[in-house]
C-alpha cells in the first residue's frame, strides 16, 4: 500500500514538470506582449518599455526565463538599465519554492490572488461533485431497479440531454427562466451584496443552486448511465444467481450484492470529475459571475498577464493530480480485489 502510494507520488513528479513546460511553451509562443498591453497608448516611451521588459526578464532566452520561473531569480543580478551589467538582485523565489511570481497587471503576488479565488471555486466544485455523484448514483440505481419501465426511459432521456447540452447555454436558459421570468433565484455572484451583517447561509445557498446544478449535470448524466449498466451487469453474475438460488430475499441481494459491487467502480471517477469540474467552472463562473479561479484565469489570459495564467494552470493541475491520486488510493482501499505489486 505504502509502496503503491510512493510509486504514484514519484510518477506525479515528471507529470508536474510536463505541466510547467507545456504551459510555459504555450505562453512563450504567444504573439502578444504583456508590456505592450500595459504601456499601450499614444505616449509610448520605448526606453521605459525596454527597461520594464528587462525587469520582468522578458529579454532573456526562453530557457533562462523558464528556470527563473521555476526556481526564482533572487540569486541572479538583473540588468534593468541595459548596460550589460546586472545590478539589481531579482525578487522572485520561483514556483518550486512556493512563489508564483507577481501579476504583471497589478503587481500583487500570484499566490495571494489565487488563494483569494480558490475557495470560491472549491465551494462550487465540491458542491457540484457531491450533487453530481449522489444524484447520478440515485438515478442510476432507480433506472436499474425499474429497467425497461418509464422511469428508466425518463432517466435515459435526462442523461442523453444532460450530456449534450452546452453548459453555458443551459446556464443562460436557467437565468432566463428562474432569474428573469420567474424572478425566483439570484443569477450572479456568491451572495447578496446589498445585504448587511455577516455570512448568510441561506443566501449563499440560493446563489449556489443554479451554477451547481449546471456544473453537476454532466456527471448526473454520465453516472446515471454508468451506474445502471454496472448494476445490471452485476445482476447477471453467478454469485447473484447463487444468492437467488439459496433463497435470499430480494432486498438483501440488492443491497449486499448488486449495489455494493455495482457502485464500487463509481469511485474511480472522483479523480476525472475534479478535472472536468475545474474546467467547467471556467465557463460556469463566467456565466454566473462567480468570483473564482476560472474568472481569474480568463481575465488574466485577456490581459496577457502570464504569471497569473501559468500560476493558475499549475495550481489547477496540482489540484487535479492530487485529486486523481487520492481517488485511486481510495479505490484500492475500497476494492480488496485489486492486488498491488
Amino acid at each position: 500500500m505504502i509502496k503503491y502510494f510512493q510509486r504514484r507520488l514519484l510518477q506525479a513528479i515528471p507529470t508536474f514538470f510536463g505541466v510547467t513546460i507545456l504551459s510555459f511553451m504555450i505562453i512563450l509562443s504567444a504573439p502578444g506582449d504583456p508590456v505592450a498591453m500595459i504601456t499601450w497608448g499614444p505616449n509610448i516611451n520605448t526606453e521605459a518599455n525596454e527597461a520594464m521588459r528587462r525587469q520582468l526578464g522578458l529579454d532573456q532566452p526562453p530557457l533562462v526565463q523558464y528556470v527563473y520561473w521555476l526556481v526564482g531569480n533572487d540569486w541572479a543580478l538583473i540588468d534593468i538599465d541595459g548596460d550589460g551589467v546586472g545590478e539589481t538582485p531579482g525578487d522572485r523565489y520561483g514556483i518550486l519554492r512556493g512563489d508564483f511570481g507577481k501579476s504583471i497587471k497589478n503587481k500583487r503576488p500570484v499566490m495571494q490572488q489565487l488563494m483569494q479565488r480558490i475557495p470560491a471555486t472549491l465551494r462550487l466544485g465540491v458542491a457540484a461533485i457531491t450533487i453530481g455523484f449522489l444524484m447520478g448514483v440515485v438515478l442510476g440505481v432507480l433506472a436499474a431497479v425499474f429497467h425497461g419501465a418509464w422511469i428508466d426511459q425518463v432517466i435515459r432521456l435526462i442523461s442523453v440531454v444532460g450530456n449534450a447540452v452546452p453548459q453555458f447555454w443551459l446556464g443562460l436558459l436557467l437565468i432566463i427562466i428562474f432569474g428573469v421570468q420567474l424572478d425566483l433565484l439570484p443569477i450572479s455572484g456568491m451572495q447578496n451584496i446589498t445585504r448587511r451583517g455577516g455570512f448568510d447561509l441561506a443566501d449563499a445557498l440560493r446563489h449556489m443552486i443554479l451554477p451547481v446544478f449546471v456544473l453537476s449535470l454532466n456527471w448526473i448524466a454520465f453516472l446515471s448511465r454508468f451506474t445502471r449498466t454496472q448494476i445490471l451487469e452485476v445482476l447477471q453474475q453467478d454469485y447473484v444467481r447463487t444468492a437467488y438460488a439459496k433463497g435470499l430475499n430480494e432486498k438483501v441481494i440488492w443491497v449486499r450484492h448488486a449495489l455494493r459491487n455495482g457502485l464500487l467502480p463509481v469511485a474511480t471517477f472522483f479523480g476525472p470529475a475534479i478535472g472536468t469540474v475545474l474546467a467547467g467552472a471556467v465557463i460556469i463562473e463566467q456565466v454566473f459571475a462567480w468570483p473564482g479561479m476560472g474568472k481569474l484565469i480568463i481575465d488574466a489570459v485577456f490581459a496577457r498577464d502570464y504569471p497569473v495564467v501559468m500560476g493558475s494552470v499549475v495550481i489547477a493541475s496540482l489540484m487535479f493530480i492530487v485529486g486523481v491520486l487520492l481517488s485511486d488510493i481510495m479505490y484500492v482501499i475500497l476494492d480488496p480485489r485489486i492486488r498491488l505489486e
Partner: protein
Amino acid sequence: MAQRSKITRLEAAQLPSRSFWRDALAFIRRDRLTVFAISVLLVFTLICVLMPVIFENVLNLDVNSTSIPNRFKQPGESGFILGTDQLGRDQFLRLIYGGRVSLTIAYLASFITVFIGISLGLLAGYYGRGVDDLISWGVNTLSAIPPLFLLLIASAVWEPSTEVLVVVLAALGWVGTSRLVRGEVLSLKERDYVLAARALGASDLRILVSHILPNVFSIVMVTMTIIAGNLITIESGLSYLGVGIQPPTPTWGNMLTDSRSYFVSGVHLVFTPGILIMITVICFYLVGDGLRDALDPRRYQQ
C-alpha cells in the same frame, strides 16, 4: 427457444459467411435509432455544405448582409423563417453557415485527433520502453491539466482561424484515443497471429498496419463519433469565453454567445443555435452508441 436457435444456427452455417464489417453494417441497419441519428447528421451536413453554394450562386444572398430596419424580427416575420439577429442578419442563413463551420470543426478535428491518437498509441503500445515512456509522459501531462484550461489559453494567444482551431483542438485532444489504443495494442501484440506474421518476416510497419490496426479500428470509430460530439460543445464553450472563431464568421457557438446580450429583444436567437447544437451532439452520441453495439463481437453471446 433452444430448439429454434439451433435451427437458425444450422441454417446460418449453410449461408455464405459475412465479414465482420458487413455483419456490423447489417446490425446497424436493423437499429432504427442509429439509422435515424445517422440520417439527421447526413441531412445537416448536406444542408450546410450545399445550401451556401445555392445561396451564393443562385439566390445571390449574402450571409453577412446587415439591415438595421430588419433588426430582431421574430421567426416568420416578413419572410424570415427564423427571424433576424441584432444586425438584421437572417438567422436561418446564419445557422446554415454556422453549421458549416461547426460541423467542419467537428469532422476534421475529430479525424485528426483520432489520427494522432492512433499513431502515438500504436507506437507506444508496440515499441514499449523509451518510446512508451516518452509518449506516456505526454499523455500524463496533457491529462493532468483540466481539459479546457489549455484550450482556453492556446486559442486566446493564437486567436485562431477555423484551420488553426482544428489543429489546436486535435493537438490537445488526442490523449484519450492514444491511451485506449495503447492498451489494446499491448494485448494484441502478444497474439499468435502477430507472432506468425513476425515469423514470416513481416516488418514492424506491416505488422502494425495490417495486423494490429484493423483490430483497434472498431473501438476507435466509436471514440471518434463521441469526440466529434464533444468538439461541437467545446467549440461553443470557447466561443462563449470569447476565444473561439471570431465574428462575423458565424458558428453555432458564437451565434449563441452573441445572443446572450439580447435576452429581451431577441429570445429566439438564444434558442435556435442551442437546439441545433444539442440535436447534433445527441446524434453523434447515438451513432457512437449504435456503433459500439454493432462492433461488439460479444453481442451474440447474450
